[in-house]
Structures are given as C-alpha cells and as structure tokens.
C-alpha cells in the first residue's frame, strides 16, 4: 500500500494511582519526558504530537486536549486529539502510526492521559451520558448495568461459571504485583477472594472490575530510517485495525464482539498474520472486567467462541505459558485510567518484545504481540500488532 515502516522506539509511564497529586498536564509531562529520555530525544526532534484522552467530563474542562497541550509537548507542533472512549489508548498510537506511515512526519510523540479522580462523587457518573438521553436515561441506569448485562449474556450463552472467569482477575492481579506502576497488584490473591468480594451488579463483583485511576503513558514513534539510527531494538507496528458496530447497543448480540473481530482481521491482514493462534506470542487484550479479556481474546481470534477461559485453565495465558495474556497485569491489576490504560498495553508489548520487562518478562522471547482496546458504548474495537 506504499506505506512506510513505523517503529516504537521509546516509552514512558507514570504510576497508576487512585488519586494523583499531579494535575492531568503534569502527568502528561512526566510520561512524555520519560518516553523522550528513554530514546535520548528532545522535543526538538518531535514533529507532531498525538493526544489520546477520554471524556472532557472527567476534568470538567472544554477541549481538554488543549488544556493538556503544554504538558504533552504540543507547543508550536501539529497536534491532534483522538477519542474513541475506552478504545482511545490503542487508537492514539494508530493515529501516530499513520502520521509516520504516510510520510507526513518522521518522529511523532503519542501521549495518553486520564485523571478520573477529579469527578465527584465518583467517576462512574461521568459516563452516564453514554446512555441515550430519551430512551434510556429516564430509567436511571448506571454504568455497571451495561457490563453486567453483557457479562451475563456471555456467561449464559457459553455456560461459563463465575469461578472460572475469576481466574482471569487472579492471573492479571498477580501479574501486576511485578509492575512498578500498578495500583492493584496482589501476588497472593485467590479465586475465593474474587468470589467473596462485594456484589455490585450481579454477575459483576468488586474484584471482577478494574479500579478508576489517574495516570499517563507516552511512546515515541519513528520512521524506519530514523528508528534504525536511534536504536538497535526497534519494535515495529506491523498491523493496525479499528472498527465500529451499531451504537444501538441493545440491538447487538452481546455474546460476541464482532467489532473486535473485524478490527483484528484488518490488523492481521496488514501484518501478514494468517494463523493468529500460532503467530501471536503475547497478547494484551483490553480487560476492564475479567470477562472482557475472554470476550476480546475470542474477538481477536485467539480462542474459539466461549473457549478463551481454557487459556487460563490450562496455563497458556500465564507469564510462562505459550501465549502470555496481559503480562503487564492489565487494567484489572495495573489500573484503568482510560486512555492511558490502552497505551500502557502498547508500552508493555514494547518492553516485552525488547526483553526489558524486568520481573514481568515472559518466557520464550516473544517476537509478535497484539494489543487491543474497546470502548464507546461497547461497540468500538482498536487493535495493534507489534513485532521485532
């Protein structure tokens, strides 16, 4: 298609915390500075900045990307914000990718930031406007409804049990115990802990859900000729895909994320991947809820429908398994500052594929990985395939 090769050459992130002392722009600056330092570049080397950040409602600031612009390094640069709800963190690097792949820029900084704690009394209420104002909001919904409703459909369609799905939360939170930025890493958590946690909206219990968090992540993207000059270990963006399903969420079959499948097929085709189950060595599916990791693994074609749980039950998904899933600890363990959480998955693949993930480093020196995020009213899928 006449596109240039694009590599990730640097990454940085802040700790994910329940409430950060830093403002959103300060968090953005910390992550961006760290990403630049990691590849020994300065802002002078950056030709364009892509910002990913979720609803303005979290901050109560109109066009919050402009409010964030000094922290994210946008002064006197081409600057663009993308926002596809929870899918943003994996879409922003896609936007950065096409800035470079197209030949427009050689070096681009991608920053994703979220500070959810400013919203009172709880960030959940900032999401209520995703429900239709005329046909749904008069029923006084809360955000958990939609996920609990989807989880129940998924479980019931395939006859899955809560005690099995809880294995996902356990695996991810244990993985996160080795992540220095994690909010909820717990090395000793058990299935019983998950099953005994408070029921919020059955079948969703407290430990089935990721925590609201504050944090920021940044990466640096470079064209091939620049990347090869700057690092001996570029990690290539080999395929990208994104896809939208109907926004009438009650008109969809909630048991299967078709929008993820289409996004994944687009990305795999670009990456030349024909058998994802053999060719993907490490996966970072979006996991704001434990069942969502399973749902998304199926959409990513890494498991048959209703069978993703087997990857956890037979050890395939473990850090020393054949296809580690969310070795970072995911949203369930590291935390869920919406856009930053998605880009954290890209950063994790960058570190894992370079063999620089420290205590989290998976076995088997993976060569190819996939990261995915999901959002809006449960109908957008964003997918990036990375390799070395």
């Amino acid at each position: 298609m006449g596109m240039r090769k694009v590599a990730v050459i640097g990454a940085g992130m802040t700790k994910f915390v329940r409430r950060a002392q830093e403002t959103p722009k300060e968090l953005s600056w910390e992550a961006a500075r760290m990403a630049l330092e990691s590849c020994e570049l300065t802002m002078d080397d950056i030709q364009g900045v892509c910002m990913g950040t979720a609803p303005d409602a979290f901050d109560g600031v109109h066009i919050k990307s402009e409010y964030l612009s000094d922290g994210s390094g946008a002064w006197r640069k081409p600057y663009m914000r993308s926002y596809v709800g929870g899918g943003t963190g994996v879409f922003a690097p896609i936007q950065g990718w096409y800035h470079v792949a197209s030949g427009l820029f050689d070096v681009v900084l991608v920053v994703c930031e979220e500070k959810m704690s400013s919203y009172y009394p709880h960030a959940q209420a900032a999401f209520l406007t995703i429900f239709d104002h005329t046909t749904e909001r008069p029923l006084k919904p809360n955000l958990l409804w939609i996920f609990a409703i989807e989880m129940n459909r998924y479980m019931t369609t395939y006859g899955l049990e809560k005690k099995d799905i809880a294995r996902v939360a356990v695996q991810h939170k244990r993985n996160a115990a080795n992540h220095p930025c994690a909010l909820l890493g717990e090395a000793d958590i058990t299935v019983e802990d998950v099953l005994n946690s408070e029921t919020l909206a059955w079948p969703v219990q407290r430990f089935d859900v990721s925590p609201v968090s504050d944090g920021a992540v940044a990466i640096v993207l470079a064209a091939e000729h620049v990347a090869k000059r700057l690092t001996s270990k570029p990690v290539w963006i080999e395929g990208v895909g994104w896809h939208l399903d109907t926004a009438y969420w009650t008109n969809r079959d909630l048991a299967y994320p078709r929008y993820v499948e289409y996004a994944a097929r687009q990305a795999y085709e670009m990456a030349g991947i024909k058998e994802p189950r053999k060719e993907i060595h490490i996966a970072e599916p979006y996991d704001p809820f434990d069942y969502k990791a399973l749902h998304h693994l199926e959409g990513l074609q890494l498991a048959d429908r209703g069978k993703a749980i087997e990857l956890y039950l037979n050890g395939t998904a473990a850090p020393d398994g054949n296809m580690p899933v969310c070795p970072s600890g995911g949203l369930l363990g590291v935390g869920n500052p919406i856009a930053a959480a998605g880009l954290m998955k890209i950063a994790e693949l960058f570190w894992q594929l370079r063999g620089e993930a420290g205590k989290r480093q998976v076995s088997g020196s993976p060569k190819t990985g996939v990261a995915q995020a999901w959002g809006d009213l449960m109908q957008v899928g964003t997918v990036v395939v990375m390799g070395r």
Partner: protein
Amino acid sequence: MTGNIKNFPGVSLSEQDFDDGKILFVHDELKANYAWDTGVGIGAYLAGLKRGVILGARCAHCRKVVVPPRTVCEWCYNPMEEYVPVQDTGTVNTFSLCYVTWDVKRITEPEIPAVIMLDGASALSNTSVIMGGIMHKLGEVEPKKVKIGMRVQAVWKPQAEREGAITDILYFKPIG
C-alpha cells in the same frame, strides 16, 4: 527498560491527606441543562408509548423491523419511513441484579435492568443483530428467579398518567 527504572513518576494521595488539610483544592458544580427534541423516529416512538403501543421501524429495502424506530437503516443505509407496532411481550435476552445506584450508593433490593427482545420485531439475524432489543427493567419477580429466556410483558402506567416517555412502561413482568 521498566526492569532498569526504579522510580516512576506520580505521587499517590490518600483520603487522609485531604482530611489533614495537606491538599489544596477547588470545588465547583457545573450547570448543564438541556431540552432534547425527540426528532422523527423517537418522536413517533414516544407518541406510540403514550397510546400504549411499542413502535418499530421497518426497512422497506432489507425488511428488518427494529426497535427503537429510526429514520435510517444503518445496515443497508436506506430510509426507514414506515413505523409499525410490535408486541409488548418479549423474551429476556440478558439481565443484571444491580445493588449500586448511579452514584455508587448501595441498595439492598436490587434493580433488575434487562435487554428484552420484543415479539414482532425481527429476530436475531445472521449479522448478530437483535432487532427488537430494548433496555428496560424487570418487576413483580423475585430477583433470584430471573432467567435468560424468561417470557415477559410490559406493565403500563394508567393511560391518564402516560406522558410519552420510556417510563410510560413501568417495567416488564414475567408471563406464562
């Protein structure tokens, strides 16, 4: 690299920091009032509810009947100009038992939000679309006895109290 870095940026605050007055902050409430026009499709839907009828939109091109009604069929991108009644009975596609309010207050009697597939709308298609699926609540049922696949029917407000709103249906209750 994460393996080499000892100190990641970001300082975590606790509730105690606020209680102790260590943190300065500004509190504000934003005013946001709206009056949403209901438009053509949803306008017809609400007028139907006031009469005690649930309307769907029919696509003359691909022949889907979908609820709620709309002016364009997003699957074939042709106009939807015909609004037809569907039944006020249906099947529970999925549900939750919710013990938390919109602002995360705990409640002991759960609310039961559900997706209900209405009879008379198109069924699950080969494009994974549930044409007649709407969100509403279930009532007159013991929470633990709710099942996916359960048959339900709308319980309407008395005619004189209906105002052309989704809440003209109080909830759906089990039948048969």
